[in-house]
């Protein structure tokens, strides 16, 4: 069987991403958190005092690197295309709940793969939830749910998010006193700034080039049995697994996992909510980040929605801890399902009325 060039690039991208991820952990990031897009936006929200959970406050340079990596490479490859205007407020709301789901599970789809590669079986439960959420969201899209079209935007609209994160990097480097930094907990654990930034740049450029997408991989496999996109996630998992085994960071089991809980139902439902919302948005948190770098202001709105979700999650006690999910978090997860379903059904209804 001939292996397509696309597949090879995804495999290589996955391997490099896996190696970078585990290296970041070895150099200081929390366990199985070389990358966690949701956790990192949560930490950034904390550093900016948008919430006051003292253990999760840090400006994660990985995020800045991801956005810049995508921004720079898309300009070089002439793929920087400012687009936006596809229901920005609805995207903000859905992203808000995607973040709630991620913080109930304690990780985005990216970290779910990394947790799995570290032997954390709670992430396996979450993977089933994620797939279930994707299937549910895809059914709604199949019925005609849509956030509507995006349209051409100006260059300044398309690059605004990159400029904002450049400003954030400058503040981190030159006036860190404006920010809050955790002195204990996950927020206090991080690789050196320059390493994190480079790690983000590498992974961001790769993800822009190979359209790395976890939800998309599952979708293609189910919809038309094509494994191209899934290759990226599989090789990311394999590379991270090998790295963890070599470095002795592999710890198989449910209990005793770092920044994780064993509340299986809420691991499942939290990640189901992430999958559900991500399909309607058109990509999980890392994909939204990469899209934002490419000039997609709908992706940029998603970032703000996620940061707002993280701020609420920690200010109102919705986020889980190693003790498990909170009752408020459970309620917020259910509300998330209701809100995203309602939005989708209303868009279906509106479309039918137009015809």
């Amino acid at each position: 069987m001939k292996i397509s060039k696309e597949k090879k690039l995804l495999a290589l991208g996955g391997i490099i991403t896996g190696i970078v991820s585990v290296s970041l952990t070895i150099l200081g990031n929390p366990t199985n958190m070389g990358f966690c897009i949701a956790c990192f936006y949560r930490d950034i929200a904390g550093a900016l005092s948008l919430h006051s959970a003292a253990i999760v406050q840090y400006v994660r340079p990985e995020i800045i690197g991801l956005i810049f990596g995508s921004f720079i490479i898309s300009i070089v490859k002439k793929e920087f295309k400012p687009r936006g205007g596809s229901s920005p407020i609805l995207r903000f709301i859905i992203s808000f709940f995607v973040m709630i789901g991620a913080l109930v599970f304690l990780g985005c789809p990216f970290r779910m793969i990394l947790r799995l590669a570290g032997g954390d079986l709670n992430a396996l439960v979450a993977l089933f939830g994620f797939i279930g959420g994707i299937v549910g969201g895809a059914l709604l899209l199949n019925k005609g749910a849509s956030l509507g079209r995006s349209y051409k935007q100006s260059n300044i609209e398309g690059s605004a998010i990159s400029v904002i994160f450049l400003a954030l990097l400058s503040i981190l480097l030159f006036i860190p006193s404006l920010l809050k930094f955790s002195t204990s907990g996950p927020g206090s654990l991080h690789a050196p700034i320059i390493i994190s930034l480079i790690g983000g740049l590498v992974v961001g450029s790769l993800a822009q080039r190979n359209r790395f997408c976890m939800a998309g991989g599952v979708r293609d496999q189910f919809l038309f049995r094509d494994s191209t996109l899934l290759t990226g996630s599989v090789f990311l998992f394999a590379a991270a697994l090998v790295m963890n085994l070599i470095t002795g960071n592999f710890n198989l089991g449910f209990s005793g996992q770092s920044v994780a809980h064993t509340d299986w139902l809420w691991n499942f439902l939290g990640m189901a909510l992430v999958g559900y919302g991500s399909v309607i948005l058109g990509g999980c948190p890392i994909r939204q980040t990469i899209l934002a770098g490419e000039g997609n202001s709908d992706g940029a709105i998603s970032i703000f929605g996620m940061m707002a979700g993280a701020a609420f999650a920690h200010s109102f006690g919705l986020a889980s801890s190693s003790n498990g999910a909170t009752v408020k978090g459970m309620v917020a997860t259910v509300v998330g399902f209701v809100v995203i379903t309602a939005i989708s059904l209303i868009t279906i209804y509106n479309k039918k009325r137009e015809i």
Partner: protein
Amino acid sequence: MEVDARGLSCPQPIIETKKVVDKGAKSLSVLVDNIASKENVMRFAKAMKFDVVVNDTDYGWKLDLKEND
């Protein structure tokens, strides 16, 4: 048949194309305006055994899909 998938976020271009293909269309055109959608639709077309001709346009691409024999 023409599927206007311009500006639709992923995976709607594939879903809308699939709907038309599932109805039995042997040839169709899909309009896309971003590279990820273009690649996704082309991958879908290949998996469904359709030949794809890519035409560059001012908004992006017009993909002509034709079932191969």
